[in-house]
């Protein structure tokens, strides 16, 4: 019972069967499966516990094996049998030597064989032509000599085609749309009479849309932007006209909120304007709209411009609006 622990020199032998008191051991305490490279630590009867090496090899915490010595391992030597999963040894295998017949299933089967001198009795290669590719290069390279390093092309040639296709798609989406828009004639409403005495010249692309709810004014549309223009006699200020117009719109549209009023002049006309955001749900159109309400005062008339479009699309028609307001004329 209290004899000395086994010495390293007489380490105990492994037991053939489970020890009788193994049940007292927690199962977690049993070491894990040793890695294949690990040795088989053993315990021998007698003596004392080993001084240096544990008698039972552990898979738990092992010092890392020293790195492989420099140089290729044995299996990588030419001629050594290749092992599954290992990289091929340096140097060509026997079947790849010049003159050796290609074997089906071997790497390179179906590819041109290694360079070598032309077989005896075969016609020599055609003389090299000046200016032809390969001129000045040996007709064949003796086996074992380093082949001439081919210069890499500037670009990866395989990627040219897909890259060009992608570029063409992008160009088609952007430039194609712009070009098509220019090619297709933009029917314009031209000069439009608003009310009895006001005329404006519609910008290119703006078409007149006749709807029943334009309130006696004129409704123009370009793409998904709608512009309603109405003219009426008015004796107040542009700001007052703007307030009236806001109230009118509010009564027509349940969900609308206006921004702050901005007063100024545009092309010589006194203007008051306010942005708005509206949510419209109905048979004639649904969605969230950005809009601008502009009241232009000209003499005894006020001209209201109400432009609305899907959220985010308003900025594309600002120039058109300015041009149309500049074209505004009030007849006598």
């Amino acid at each position, binding site marked *: 019972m209290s004899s000395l622990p086994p010495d390293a020199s007489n380490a105990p032998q492994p037991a053939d069967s489970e020890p009788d008191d193994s049940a007292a*051991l927690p199962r*977690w305490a049993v070491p894990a499966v040793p890695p294949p490279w690990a040795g088989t630590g053993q315990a021998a009867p007698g003596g004392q516990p080993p001084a240096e090496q544990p008698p039972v090899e552990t898979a738990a915490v092992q010092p890392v094996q020293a*790195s492989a010595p420099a140089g290729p391992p044995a299996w990588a030597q030419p001629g050594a049998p290749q092992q599954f999963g290992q990289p091929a040894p340096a140097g060509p295998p026997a079947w790849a030597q010049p003159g050796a017949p290609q074997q089906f299933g071997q790497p390179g089967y179906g590819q041109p064989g290694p360079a070598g001198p032309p077989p005896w009795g075969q016609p020599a290669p055609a003389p090299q032509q000046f200016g032809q590719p390969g001129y000045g290069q040996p007709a064949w390279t003796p086996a074992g000599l380093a082949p001439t390093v081919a210069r890499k092309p500037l670009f990866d040639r395989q990627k040219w085609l897909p890259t060009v296709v992608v570029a063409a798609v*992008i160009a088609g989406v952007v430039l194609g749309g712009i070009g098509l*828009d220019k090619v297709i004639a933009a029917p314009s409403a031209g000069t439009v009479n608003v009310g009895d005495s006001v005329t404006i010249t519609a910008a290119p692309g703006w078409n007149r849309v006749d709807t029943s709810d334009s309130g006696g004014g004129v409704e123009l549309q370009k793409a998904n932007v709608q512009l309603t223009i109405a003219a009426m006699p008015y004796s107040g200020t542009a700001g007052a006209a703007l307030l009236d117009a806001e109230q009118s719109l509010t009564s027509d549209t349940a969900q609308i909120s*206006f921004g702050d009023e901005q007063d100024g002049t545009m092309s010589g006309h006194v203007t008051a304007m306010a942005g708005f955001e509206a949510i419209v749900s109905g048979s004639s159109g649904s969605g969230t709209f950005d809009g601008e309400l502009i009241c232009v005062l000209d003499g005894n008339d006020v001209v209201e411009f109400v432009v609305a479009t899907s959220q985010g699309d308003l900025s594309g028609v600002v120039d058109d609006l300015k041009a149309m307001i500049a074209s505004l004329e009030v007849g006598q």
Partner: protein
Amino acid sequence: MSSCVAPTSPSQAAPAPRWGVQGSLIQPRQPAFWLFLALLGIGGYLFVDEQSTFSQLPTALTLSWGLVLLYAVPVVLIVYGLDLFEREPKLMLAAALVWGGVIAVSLAGYANDAWLSVLGKVAPADFTADWGAAVVAPVTEEILKLTGVIILFLIVPTEFDGVMDGFVYGAMIGIGFTVVEDVSYFINATAAFGGADQTGPVIDTFLIRVVAGGLYSHVLFAGLTGMGFAYFVTRRQEAFSRRLLVFGALVVAGAGAHFVWDSPWMMSVLDVAPGVDKPSTFQWVEYGLIKGLPFLLLLILMVLFATRSEEKNFRAIVAGEPDPEVITEPEIAYLGSLWSRRKARSAAGRIRGPQGSRLTGRLQAAQVEYAMIRSRSDTLTDPALDAQRLKIRVIRAQLVAVQFIPVAPAAPMAAGPYAAPSMTPATMAAPSMAPATEPPLPAGPAPEPVATAAPQAAAQAVAQPQPQPAAAPIASAPPAPPIWAPTHLVPPGGMAAWNAPDPSRPAMLNLPERLELVVESRAGAWAQVRAVNGWRGWVDGRRLVDRG
């Protein structure tokens, strides 16, 4: 028996991807790289021009960027985190963000205007007014975003190893796109309201576009189309027609989600009562749920599919690892999702404290890094692999050395529902470094005796829950004393332990190095020791390291 990863025969598995070989965006030999640069120049000019115009409303612009970044940064981190195993190169991810936010969004502005104008000329006015945006934007914008994924693929095709990569790059492009587009929306709303109030319109638009609809934005659309493309180019083991079909279906799904989102459908959800000027935020959220949730669920399903695929690749890479301490089947399972990884860290934190949680996180990262190295190594004896194995072992040793937090015996299982039967507080104190018994990765059963060990059988054993193999011996072990005051440590390299100081018996197990022990008695050179869980045994007392 430790449940090391069973090797897979070549005939059973597809070739493992070379995750560890990461490509650079800078590829002057690739024509696509120069196309990217050219378009970056054009898009960059348009972007700077637009932002300088927006700067006329400085408060609104600053607030807009602040708000969108508040949304975008977590989304970027989530998308990045979803790529569980092979994280994409950061420069590539930055390129994707730039493509979306600088190139695609700038070009899309012109394309949308042009195609809407064309539509207005050829289609009825009412149709254009109602459906113009829904018809044009999904086509132009999704094409421009998808070409970004394709160009990144053409520059560095090796970075596309699976469907998840397509999602990551597509989503990053979508994030970039939506951030810049949102800023322009915020500024346009401010300008539409005259610009006097530079905060109200920004916040209102933020609530609508980000709070209510942020989950269904370009991240969703481009994520779907990107996955479709990645499916097409990476799953080459499948028939061409099938790949093409899946590619087309996912592109249609992405563009379709965009179409539904832009369409005037379901606007009645936003109807308000008389006297109320605008819909509530709740209505906007409801609106977003109805229009976007089905596609979001599709995306989630696809991401789960992609994650499974990534896990499969990971498994293929680490298959055949001879050292069972590197990674086990349960650990692979726990690496399979952000949720399970966090769960494992939390479990470790509960029983070993914050340090245990941190070490578990480091162990997980080291195991993923091991797979990266393994995927680019041609041989198992690669020194870099050895170094990584050592790193993993060191972390495991540190983890085992972390003091346990005492748990009351009557307390419920501290490790949570995912804990294996062996995860009782007593077993968690086991003096074994077998990974299956490690708390942070607790799904594995207790190890089997060496004599019965076989890697394949181990994997099968892990797959089948075992009826608490460790419970009986643990239950019969004497209860641990309330105060644990270890006096010695197991020396480096570990040491053998005997049930009795009888040299005629074989050693029963090997104790891992740095394991804390209490020496209870000595008999000559023998020392009777006790582990934290109450286990007792005999060791060579001369080799024990005094804790001092």
